[in-house]
């Protein structure tokens, strides 16, 4: 991300809090012209103290901060990748090749898993999780037409009658955690048209009641790293009492990170259920949200 893009990002984050440049400047004890220079991308050097103060003023969680500091390095996305020949940025492993590798892993894993992008849109799900949550592959085309419908949170709301009990028992924690993941994974992409397009939908209270509240809550609550380890125990109508942790792992591409979420069993019964599903449902994946291109209706 170059300085101009970084400037746009800062402007977006500031506007999200509803502040003017003057208000942000006052909070940071800086001249308005400095803020204006940062946002126009004409301030070349961002010293550590300034970066820290920006992160602080913009109320970022530490996951968001890490993304902000990566963005502030001014390196192009492609230069954040290792060139396979040592030096030239055009020699990096391409995004489609990386996606293919991840899909192959997802297909082979003997537990339910799904792959999401920086917008928390589900790019793919393995056959085990589709079977567990009775997700029909035919629904994908239909959902692709609805903005935001393939993001994790809204998939669960609209499709997830079966996940219902897992979620409703601790809705508040679940919603905040999801929102925090959405905030952190999307941070470097907040000024992108696609992010703004999604947010416009999400902020419509008739379509997504509660979004605004959780969006705020996720950034104002204190740090709690352990909440990243989400544990679920609930009764599935078909498979009985299930217990699992949800873990994620990161893969870096020039189109942003891809996260593979895995449902890892924490008791014997759940282990058996997942293994039986793995045997019966076969090793394939369902492709869902488009990636890396993000068409807008």
């Amino acid at each position, binding site marked *: 991300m*170059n300085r101009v893009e970084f400037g746009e990002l800062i402007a977006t984050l500031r506007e999200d809090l509803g502040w003017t440049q003057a208000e942000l400047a006052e909070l940071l004890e800086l001249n308005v012209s400095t803020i204006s220079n940062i946002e126009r991308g004409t301030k070349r050097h961002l010293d550590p103290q300034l970066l820290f103060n920006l*992160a602080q003023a913009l*109320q970022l969680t530490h996951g968001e*901060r890490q993304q902000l500091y990566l963005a502030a390095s001014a390196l192009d996305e492609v230069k954040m990748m290792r060139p396979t020949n040592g030096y030239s940025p055009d020699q990096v492993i391409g995004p489609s090749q990386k996606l293919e590798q991840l899909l192959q892993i997802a297909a082979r894993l003997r537990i339910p898993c799904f792959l999401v992008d920086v917008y928390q849109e589900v790019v793919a799900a393995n056959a085990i999780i589709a079977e567990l949550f009775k997700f029909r592959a035919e629904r994908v085309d239909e959902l692709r037409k609805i903005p935001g419908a393939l993001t994790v949170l809204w998939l669960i709301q609209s499709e997830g009658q079966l996940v219902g009990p897992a979620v409703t028992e601790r809705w508040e924690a679940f919603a905040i955690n999801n929102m925090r993941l959405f905030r952190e994974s999307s941070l470097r992409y907040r000024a992108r048209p696609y992010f703004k397009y999604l947010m416009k939908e999400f902020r419509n209270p008739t379509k997504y009641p509660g979004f605004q509240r959780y969006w705020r809550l996720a950034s104002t609550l204190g740090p709690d790293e352990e909440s990243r380890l989400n544990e679920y125990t609930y009764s599935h109508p078909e498979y009985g009492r299930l217990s699992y942790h949800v*873990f994620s792992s990161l893969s870096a591409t020039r189109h942003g990170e891809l996260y593979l979420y895995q449902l*890892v069993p*924490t008791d014997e019964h759940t282990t058996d259920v997942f293994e039986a599903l793995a045997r019966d449902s076969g090793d394939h994946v369902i492709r869902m949200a488009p990636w890396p291109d993000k068409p807008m209706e």
Partner: protein
Amino acid sequence: MDRRDFGELVATLREELGWTQAELAQAASLEESAVSIIERGARKHFDAELIYRLANTLQLTTLERREFLLAASGVDESHARFRTGTSGNSAWDAERTVQHLTQRVEHLRFPAYLIDCYGEIVAANAAAMDLFQVPIERARELADTPAGLTLLHFLYGEGMALRAAVIQNWEGLAVAGIRTFREATLRYRGQPYFKYLLKRLRNPRFYPTFERYWRKSTILDQDRFSTLNVLSYVDNIHGPLNYCVSTLTLTTPSGELSLAHCIPLDEQTSTAFRAIVDRMGVRAFRFASWPEKRMH
């Protein structure tokens, strides 16, 4: 990490490659004095091109360079990582965090372990120790051996069972171990404790083959862009094993803790893991001290 620490990190990464400042300068097309200024922490600003050249010259993988960029941002982590807002971090308790994570490791039905930013095993479940073929009592004794509680010791240490047990594709496992270690430790390579561990690991008296693979792992031209690690090897007890090690990294005021767990990729491995858990039971053990580190 402030500029001084960053300078030390650059110097350490350069020395790991066995280069002089002049050699690094030449490889990165920089003046020799520029390298010296960076390493002394006297350079204030790092533009994108300079960081890019350093990362390439130091042969960092994609995952390592993310850590390198964070280090280069210059923001002091001790207060940057945790917001000092309403809740602050005054209540943070290292011991409570480790206990909590150890419980998670215990309940997972797959081999799982917790490692710190030096690659030391802080906790592991019984299934993981069985998979590594390290009896619990033996692991406890290893606390007195420098680097004894790193996965690398299990892989490369003289007299460790795992080394003899892997009868096919030991090399794949060995290189994966080093590369994971490299990523986890990147920002801590300039720290005395890391240097102490690495010095030991590079000593051929204790680890005859480590040096060769350590070198090899940096020059391999494939990238490491994912924290998922697919392992495929044959051992003397279970036969062919195919699993994916997935790592989740948690940030704490005392550096990262990574929770790694092994997910089977085929039915045979599922069955093997199942048998291990049935035999070993659901238990977890604490090993390396954390966050305090002691050098012998």
